[in-house]
Each structure stands twice: as C-alpha cells, then as structure tokens.
C-alpha cells in the first residue's frame, strides 16, 4: 500500500548486537542528555512568584469600568451580549431611581451582569462592541476553580472598586477611540428597509 507520507519505515526484525544487548551505552547516552539539561536555562517559571510580561493588549479577565466620579458606566444596552460569539454574557437591566445618580451614569443600569468564564473565549468582541467604554479585557488571569458556579462572574467580581481602579489606558489609546468611532459608520449598504 502506498504510504500517505514519506516518513514511514519498514520494520526490520533482526538480532541485537552485543553492544545493544548489554544496554549500557544506550543508558549512558540517555543519562548524558538528562545531565546536560541540568545546566540549561529553564523553560518554565515558578508562577505566581514570577510572572511573565504580558502584551499591553492581553485579553484576560474583564473589568466593568466606573467613570471619573465613581459611577458605573455600563448601561445594560446588551451589545456585548449580542456580539459575544460564545453567548457567555447575560444581564438584567433596571431603572435608576432618584438619588442613585452617583452610582450609575445613565438612567438604565445593569442590576445583574454575569460572564460565564467557562464559556468565554476571550475574543474581546464585547470590548469592541461597547458604546459606553464600560467593559474592557485586562491582563489579569482568570483564576481556575473546582466549582462551576464560581466560574460565573457577577458584578461583585467584574466591577472595579471605587478606590482600586484598573488601568486600561494601554488599550484605550486615541487611535482605538478613533477606530471605534469611525467603524460604526463604515458599513454603508445595510439595506435596513427591506
């Protein structure tokens, strides 16, 4: 039969030579390789004591930003959930009451906002879709868990603390803002009326 690749070899069954029979050269050869690796630079690092450098736009755990006054930016418009290819995002909207203006920026806010981190593929489309600059992916790694329910991150884990702001200025440069503004109107022939 013709082989699919040129890497296959015909099996040859023949008597071992004396040197092969005592196995010692083969063992020593193997030990030599092992010993050589003791003096090589390690390929691994001992995370979490040592951390590797991340790209500035690494896509890790999400953050729901607050504005400069500490009010939540998210208005539960649902565009992140709509754009999410893994359907990982769910939210429930609520109306802001009088007196909550410092908590929520817009008259509507997300009363619950959940991202299923087991579903999320960290593609960053939610960040791209967000019209309010509310959701961003950060360079934080999502911690693993032995429990499925713990992997559904609610607002308690997603919204940044008022005093512990998460810096996203690396990913929100002026070019990014300009790109987001122009891209919205780049599709001209949408034929919405028919």
């Amino acid at each position, binding site marked *: 039969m013709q082989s699919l690749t040129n890497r296959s070899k015909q099996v040859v069954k023949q008597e071992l030579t004396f040197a092969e029979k005592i196995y010692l050269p083969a063992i020593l050869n193997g030990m030599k390789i092992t010993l050589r690796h003791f003096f090589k630079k390690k390929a691994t690092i001992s995370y979490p004591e040592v951390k590797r450098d991340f790209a500035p736009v690494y896509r890790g755990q999400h953050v729901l930003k607050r504005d400069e006054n500490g009010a939540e930016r998210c208005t539960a418009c649902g*565009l992140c959930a709509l754009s999410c290819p893994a359907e990982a995002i769910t939210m429930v*909207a609520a109306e802001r009451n009088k007196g909550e203006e410092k908590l929520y920026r817009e008259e509507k806010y997300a009363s619950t906002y959940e991202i299923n981190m087991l579903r999320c593929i960290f593609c960053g489309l939610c960040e791209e879709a967000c019209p309010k600059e509310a959701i961003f992916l950060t360079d934080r790694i999502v911690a693993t868990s032995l429990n499925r329910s713990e992997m559904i991150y609610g607002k308690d884990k997603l919204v940044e603390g008022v005093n512990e702001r998460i810096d996203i200025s690396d990913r929100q440069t002026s070019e990014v803002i300009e790109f987001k503004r122009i891209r919205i109107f780049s599709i001209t022939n949408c034929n919405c009326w028919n």
Partner: protein
Amino acid sequence: MAKVTIDGKSIEVPDGTTILNAARLIGGEIVPPAMCYYTSLKTSGGYCRTCIVKVTKGSEKDPRPMPKPVASCRTTVMDGMEVQNITSPDLMEARAGVVEFLLINHPLDCPICDQAGECHLQDLAYEHGLAKTRYEFSRRTFEKIDIGSKIKLHMTRCILCYRCVKVADQITDKRVHGVMNRGDVSEISTYIQNVVDNDFSGNMIDVCPVGALTDRTFRFKSRVWFANPVDAHRDCPKCAGKVTLWLKGEEVYRVTGRKDKYGEVKDWICNDCRFEKKATSDWKIDGPANLDRHSVISQNHYTLEEPAHKPLLNDVNVVQNLVGGKEMYNS
C-alpha cells in the same frame, strides 16, 4: 390606471395612488423610507419629508420635471410619470439633509432606549446619517412623563410625526393629547398631565417610529433582540386579537401588534391584549413572527424559509467555478 416608472421599474397603478404606495407595490430597495406616513391612518404623512423623491417627468401630457423634490407619500401618480429615488445622487444628499434635521434634537441614547433595534430613525440614521453632528447649540430636553399607567412619553426623542395624534383621533373615541405650541418649541403633550387611558391608546406605542412612546410594562425589561417574537392570537371581544408576543422562554415580555415589513400594524389591538394578557396560556401561538432576516432581532433565531438562492451544488455557474471548466462539469 396610470403607468409610473420609479428608478427604471414600471408599474400600472390605479389613479390616485401615491408614489410611495406605487413604490411599495414594486418593492425592493427603491421604496422610499417613511417616518410619518402610516397606511392605516388617514391624513398621515407629509410631515417628516424622509420619503422625498425626484420627479423627472411630471406626466405624459406635461413632461416637465417637478422643480423640487416632492413628498412621495402625499403626491399622487400621473400617467407616464418618471420618478427617481435611489438612482439620484442629488436626492440621496437631500434625504441625508432631512435625516440630519430629524437628528438635530434627537438624543444619542440608543443604548438606553427600548426602541433600539426596531427603531426606524436608527435605521435611517445608519443609512444616511453622518457620524458627526454639525449642530452647535444645546439639544432641547424634556422631563419624562407617564401618560397613564402604561405609556411613557420621552418627548426628547420625539420627531413630531403626528402618528400618535392620528391614532387618538381615528382609533380612540376621545383624544386627550396633541401637539402643543408651534415651530421649534412644539411638543406632544396632554396639556395638564391628562391620563391617556382609552382602550386602544396602546396603539400609540406601535405607531411611534422612535422611542418617544414606550410600553411601561416592558420598560428596560429586555432589549428587543433578546426576546423571541412569535405570532399569536386570542378571541378578544374588543379587537382582532392578532398580535406578536415577545417571549423569553415561557415568559411574555410584551405584546405588540403585528407589523408588516414597513413597520405598520394592520390590526389594531386593545389595551387588554397588550398590557394585561402576559401569560402564554392566554394565547394560541401561530408560529415565529415574520421578520426581516437582516434585522438585529433575527439574530440567533433560526427558522426554515424558502431558500432565495438555489442550493450551491445545483448551481451550474458555481460548480463550473469550483471544478474549473465546463468540460469537466458536462463529462
């Protein structure tokens, strides 16, 4: 009968038909958009000017072109009339200007607005609008008003299309709201916080092309594209009972009239059906609502429909391109 040609497509229509309706009979992308015209409301149309078209030939007897773009919803056809809509760059520029005027005072709160996703102004702005506004003055703002326990009025979003006024005049027995004041300061109002509680007042929500009149029972419950629209009916003593239910699982999020592809409701529904019957057991479900496949509401909704294009491998041209030559296809 009159023969009218719109963007090179001819049709014979009865005398007295408007250009807009003639275009709708032809169908396709040559249909002018309409924000204020509503087929089932008499005397509607003529306010918003989005449906303007260019008449390049008045009629067979008088072939002079009309001097200015005309509102197609109010202009009737003449025999031999020739009309340009999307084929005229001048007209598209004029319409973009109309859209810019409509958007002058309209707030940019689509992420909040319940109408987003089924808003005609959103579609229109997306197709014709500019990314920037040239308006330097502050937009007019209003307080939100509850007109009755079921309808919320966001006057800020209103484009003064008068549709809701026509509904109150023609569908309900007593109109208690209207357009107050004139010109730049005109607004929809009930004058002294009057309550709109007529049995058919909920239809004002359906006819509103923007999010100025919204359903308070649906307020902020869900974005329209997350709900699953199905056609349903019930035996209603007051109305036809033919509605669209917006479901999420078994829960009825809201009830609206059945809209056709121009966003118009033919069978008005009563407030009982719209606001009170919010259980699936109240309704007999006919099947998925017939929505445009390209609408955001159709996202992630899969229904079987007639394929518009032949299946790939039955198409001679496609197969020829795939295998690279007619000979191979024939042999």
